[in-house]
């Protein structure tokens, strides 16, 4: 009997889900808990700390707002990229939108680079105070997730794109799952931004 795993790209009837769809949502749930641990640290370290806002005031709101716009834009381009595959079956159009997404991601990381180096230049490091510790760790871990997401999206643009020719339905679903991860990265930032920069 051959070992073909069922429901890889055909949803199971009673659950309505493919394995990957369920799997990626479970993974996202665990990521929510991961950032939850860090947000919990933020809350506990901030409570009754009168110096917190002084420490936080050195952050640049305009830069982070720009970064927020970048990530939100990258999310819509991911959706439009996926739509190109499912509605128009147009691989080139999908790739165009993915490149836009990657550019947004690169832009985000470039801004982050400038933010970090500016801090170091001013002698501010994670060890400087609890706010900087939380700031670097939270944005650092988020940044790693941005890089990871970009790697996956780039993979499906180029090396992984062969699957579009052999099994377009499966390929589209994989792109959808990668997109879900990317949206989570955006979602985390939506909470990170006000928490670190605005409150």
């Amino acid at each position, binding site marked *: 009997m051959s070992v073909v795993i069922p429901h890889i790209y055909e949803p199971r009837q009673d659950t309505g889900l493919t394995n990957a769809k*369920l799997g990626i949502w479970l993974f996202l749930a665990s990521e929510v808990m991961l950032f939850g641990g860090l947000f919990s640290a933020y809350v506990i370290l901030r409570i009754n700390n009168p*110096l917190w806002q002084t420490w936080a005031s050195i952050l640049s709101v305009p830069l982070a707002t720009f970064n927020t716009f970048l990530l939100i834009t990258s999310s819509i381009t991911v959706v439009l990229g996926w739509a190109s595959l499912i509605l128009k079956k147009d691989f080139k159009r999908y790739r165009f939108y993915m490149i836009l997404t990657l550019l947004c991601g690169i832009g985000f990381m470039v801004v982050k680079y400038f933010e970090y180096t500016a801090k170091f230049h001013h002698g501010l490091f994670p060890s*400087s105070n609890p706010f900087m510790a939380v700031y670097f760790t939270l944005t650092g871990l988020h940044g790693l997730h941005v890089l990871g997401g970009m790697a996956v999206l780039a993979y499906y643009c180029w090396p992984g794109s062969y699957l579009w020719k052999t099994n377009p339905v499966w390929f589209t679903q994989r792109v959808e799952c990668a997109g879900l991860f990317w949206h989570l990265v955006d979602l985390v930032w939506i909470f990170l931004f006000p928490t670190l920069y605005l409150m």
Partner: protein
Amino acid sequence: MSEAHHAELPFWRRYIFSTDHKVIGIQYGLTGLFWLLFGFCLMMIMRWSLAFPDQPLPVVGKLLGWILGEGAVPGGVILPELYNSFGAMHGTIMVFMGVVPLAVGAFGNFILPLQIGAVDMAFPKINMVSYWSLFVGSVIMALSFFVPGGAASSGWTSYPPLSDIATTGQTWWLFGMVFLITSSLLGSINFIVTTINLRAKGLSFFRLPFFVWAQFVTAFLLLLAFPPLESAAVMQLMDRLAGTSFFLPSGMVVSGEPLAVSGGGNPILWQHLFWFLAHPEVYVLILPGMGIVAEVIANNTRKPLYGYRAMVYSLVFLGFMSFVVWAHHMFMTGMGTTMSAFFQTTTMIISIPSVVIVTCLLLSLWGGSIRFNAPMLFAVGFLPMFSIGGLTGLPLGLSVPDLHFHDTLYVIGHFHYVVAPGTLFALFAGIYYWFPKATGRHLSDRLGKIHFWGSLTFMNGVFFPMFIQGLAGMNRRLYDGGASYADPVAVVDSGFYSHVVTTIDLNLMMSVSAWLMGIFQLVFIFNFIWSLKKGKRVKDDNPWNATTLEWLAPSPPPHGNFTIEPVVYREAYEYSVPGAGKDFSPQFEKG
């Protein structure tokens, strides 16, 4: 791929980097058993220090000095620093590299797809990565014994500030944990998707064997509870490597010198994040065991399980509640009375589903046609042993008695009862029960019974006196087993300690029990290795005349598991159905 195609793969892809859940299950099993033995050896050495503090350990002491260097074990004497490090690593290894890989990784991976009629796990490649992640984490933990300062020595709980300023071994521990956590996270996703999406035709949720339900709930615990510990490990790594003060309070002084850090951190933050995982983790340790016991009891009483539905609902409720009881490990951290009341209440509530499950298992014995083979002995032995463990947890979960019991030997006795003669007995039951499925041969039943009686006797010999010592107030993690309580010079008011000093002598009896327990594990090891080649062959694919789906597959199952597509026609434990031709009606048989 088909069995033929699979046979064409080179050896390293069939047996080393395999994606077949059965091979991975065996890899997890051998790894888990190895680390259980290793952790057991650490304990046997620790018990020498407890019974004969500051005295040279014959033979083994010299060997240790040769392996770890004379500095760690001068003249064969176990230094307090080494004892601490062995204590921390014993806990870490037993929990994360012994029990979980065996209970979840081995049994879960091998049995779950078979019991639901699947050809493999939903994500075979991720399954493989999850095993190798465990392997890398284990190697890191093993190597940590050899770094300057030795392995981690701040307890398996790694509380800061001590863990923040501890030697290099602690950093290795943190990196090791990251790999171990990743392994569990990947595995849990696999288990949940497999159980939901790959069930055979006719296998609805309430026809699932209890073992599958147990693994399913366990997977949710691992999925949602581990990540906060991962983030805490990242923060501790930041404290240790980047000089942050997540857990270091302001004004900390070490050896007379103020620490050159920013301060402003909170050690209790670590405790919250650690216990947020570690409490569900203890349910991860016990639930697969309960699942195994249910299978073995149903099979060996030739009766359906009593209260299957109640057991399933209890299991789910238990899993849910396990996320909101964690601070009962933290009653002594200065939390307010209202917070304390909340966690005491939830802790008392969570004892109810455990009692329901154990009671149902006990009632399942009533009126049964009981076969007392080796797996059944372990499964039945589990019931009173786990109950002692569970009952002794109750005063710990109430903050007033916990004032007295916290950090004493009582706690150690409590948790060892649930894990050692609790989970470990269940795992042994599972090994004796499913060895024929995995290998096509039986383990020797006679040797199994010897293994059981020896283990049962000496488990109680080691752990029961801990309650006595703990009640008398003996602190945990003392390298000398409390001998300094009797020191007339060190102790100012020996009257205060007059009760606890009477319990110091129990240490010798406990240590001897531990060493004798070790001898009986040799019986098991011999049995295991010998039976692989010389064990009695099974008479057919279903030697225990069991009802669940894994017994439809050949023993051992080929790549792809089943020779015909499994279809499920009835519930999981239809034993002794009135009017049926035989005393068991398998799920996979029509009519």
